[in-house]
């Protein structure tokens, strides 16, 4: 049994850091469609701009737009912009996305902290309506099942519905309120336990993309029609369970370019319902250095490290190339 020192340091969000590097690796693969440095990146930067820093440094992107709805803090965002090539638009994504010039190939990462709702689906629709062939859409949503609410919320549920409180039914009602009629009627409250909300969120995103592309394709010649290929299906938890999905949007006539991206060579790529869980072991710098000296290798059976569970070694061997190193440093 691992001790408390093996627990994740939530403030550093290590799984998020791994995810970011994996996404960067996947984007790099898009080169058959065009030079990656000419791609545009659209993200929801927040004040850290971690994704912007990574994509500029690693991929050389220079056309970068951060969407930030908190216009009150514009001073703070302008100050924290890491590079001159990053611009910040202080409007909600639902205002910005429809007006974007979609001529250039774009990586859009809708990295929400909220759960899936109608706004998210509408933003996804906007991207699918505009994005050109070779673009990538990445969506991250919170997929943590609702926790048992407090007494006041239970009473409100009771007076709103005329039924005694039930956690399953409460979760279903909350989901209905967030996404309305898109929810297949056979979904029940108990389907939302555990990983259930993550599974349903992915399905709803998939069907929204299919519907938006279908509407767009109706008036296009067959080879010009836009198809989507899921390549990312991450799940991780730096506290709350998060779910990330990524799709490449491409013209049917450019299938060969998609094949040339060879996404299947990346160990974390998932094209269907199967999930890649980003499960980050908590190790010291010294332990990581010791493990690094034994990697890469085919099987991890011979890799040893005193006092570290086998499962942690296995997970580390899978992730080490994307592993974040957090160190205290003094800048002068």
């Amino acid at each position: 049994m691992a001790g408390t020192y093996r627990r994740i340091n939530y403030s550093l969000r290590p799984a998020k850091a791994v995810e970011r590097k994996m996404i960067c690796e996947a984007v790099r693969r898009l080169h058959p469609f065009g030079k990656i440095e000419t791609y545009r990146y659209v993200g929801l930067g927040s004040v850290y701009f971690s994704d912007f820093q990574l994509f500029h440094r690693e991929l050389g992107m220079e056309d970068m737009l951060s969407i930030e709805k908190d216009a009150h803090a514009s001073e703070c965002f302008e100050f924290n912009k890491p590079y001159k090539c990053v611009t910040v638009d202080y409007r909600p994504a639902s205002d910005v996305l429809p007006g974007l010039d979609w001529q250039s190939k774009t990586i859009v990462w809708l990295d929400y902290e909220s759960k899936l709702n109608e706004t998210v689906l509408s933003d996804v629709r906007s991207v699918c309506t505009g994005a050109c062939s070779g673009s990538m859409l990445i969506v991250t949503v919170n997929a943590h099942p609702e926790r048992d609410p407090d007494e006041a919320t239970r009473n409100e549920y009771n007076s709103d519905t005329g039924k005694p409180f039930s956690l399953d039914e409460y979760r279903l009602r909350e989901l209905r309120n967030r996404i309305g009629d898109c929810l297949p009627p056979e979904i029940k409250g108990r389907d939302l336990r555990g990983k259930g909300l993550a599974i349903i969120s992915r399905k709803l995103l998939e069907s929204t993309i299919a519907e938006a592309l279908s509407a767009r394709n109706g008036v296009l010649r067959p080879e010009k029609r836009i198809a989507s290929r899921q390549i990312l299906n991450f799940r991780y938890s730096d506290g709350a369970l998060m779910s990330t999905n990524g799709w490449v949007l491409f013209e049917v006539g450019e299938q060969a370019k998609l094949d040339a991206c060879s996404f299947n060579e990346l160990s974390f790529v998932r094209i269907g319902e199967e999930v890649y869980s980003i499960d980050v072991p908590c190790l010291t710098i010294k332990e990581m250095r010791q493990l690094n000296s034994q990697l890469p290798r085919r099987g991890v059976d011979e890799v040893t490290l005193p006092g570290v569970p086998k499962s942690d070694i296995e997970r580390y061997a899978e992730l080490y190339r994307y592993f974040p190193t957090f160190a205290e440093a003094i800048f002068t």
Partner: protein
Amino acid sequence: MSVKDKGSRRANASPTKEFFIYMITRDITLTRAIIDLVDNSVDGARSMRPDHNFNGLSVRLEIDKEHFRIVDNCGGIPVEIARNYAFRFGRPKEAPVTPGSVGQFGVGMKRTFFKLGRRFTVSSTASTSRFEMDIDVDRWKEDDRPGGAGEWQFEFANVEEDLSGVKVDETGTRIEITQLYDSVAESFGLESFITRLKNEMSLAHTLSIDSGLAITVNAIPLLHEPATLFVSNTLKPAFIEKIYPSEVLSGKPGTPVRVKLFAGVSERNLHDGGWYIFCNGRLVIRADQSATTIWGASHDMRQYHPDFAYFRGYAYFDSDDASLLPWTTTKTGVDVDSPVYRSVQQEMIELSKPVLTFLSNLDKERAAIESGESKEQPLSSALTSSKAQRTEDLAISQTFDAPNPAPPPPGPRMQRIQYYKPADEVQKAMQILKVKTFTAVGEKTFDYFMQYEGEE
């Protein structure tokens, strides 16, 4: 005009098949066209089981990019009916009626065939007959031979009559439509379309599903939510029943139209609040929030509003003679000009008024509690202590019954003030005043002003 008609005193006004098909398929959505086919199965079920206990009966739909299939075990179409009525466009006057039928206009089934694809097959087994039909729509349209299919006929591929020993559970109809139109195939391939279809279908046929009819779409059974209203000792929904004789409605003797109206409060949901209208068990209007039912200035009523998210009204129109009901041919609305609907609409408005007053008072009560003006909440308590009950289980009560709102608190009449100030200045005032809430900042600064400037 052809040569042989030379000298004729008649101008040809018969419709071409092409035009006819074009016209009837435009004014209905794809989902509604499919639900129309389920209506036929429901009618079969109703004539098989006049007591409307549909346990054991099923309608199974299979839908994908290549084909559409609907299979039921609801009694089948007798050859006699198929030969003379079922495939005609429009219902002839002499056609035998299914009491309380849903299929009324004699257009639904054919309209759906033409809307979906270029080929359809129908095979049906009834108690004493069986038939099969296999039609290529493009060939049928082009075939204009006099006396042939050009005469608006479909040919049976196979007919068996005067059968005996057909078991009840062997009867039923199977319809398959293939060579789907591109746009139809595209929709059938979308998960979101199937979800929309399932949602609309389970709503439209809530009452039939409630009576035991099993409807499945791609093997997934449709669920339904029965109509409910909140009931407690102090809160009771309104219910009235009216009978409109056929003589009054059509000028001819016949079966009357029976109308049941319920109005009250139910689950709070902005989207689901409003009036629901059923004709012979089929939902034709869902959660109406417009002037079609009771809302807005044209009825001297308020517009639908978030405060009314608790409101539900249910109107059930039933008649053995379906032509007396106020529905439209697509069954997606009511004929607002029909005398029976106009009369019922008045009743709906009167029934709704006390419920809307209750909901407005409920909102005022909540605001008063929130502002600390009042502590009594008889309306909220009535709501909290109530339970959702199915409309058919409701005890008879003529009018909506709810507690009176709390009387205004004693003392002078109060007035609420609201204003905005920069956040850091308010924080500063909070510190100086040694208070913890914004409300207290407002009250203390007002008191301070009045203390120095309020004296005459």
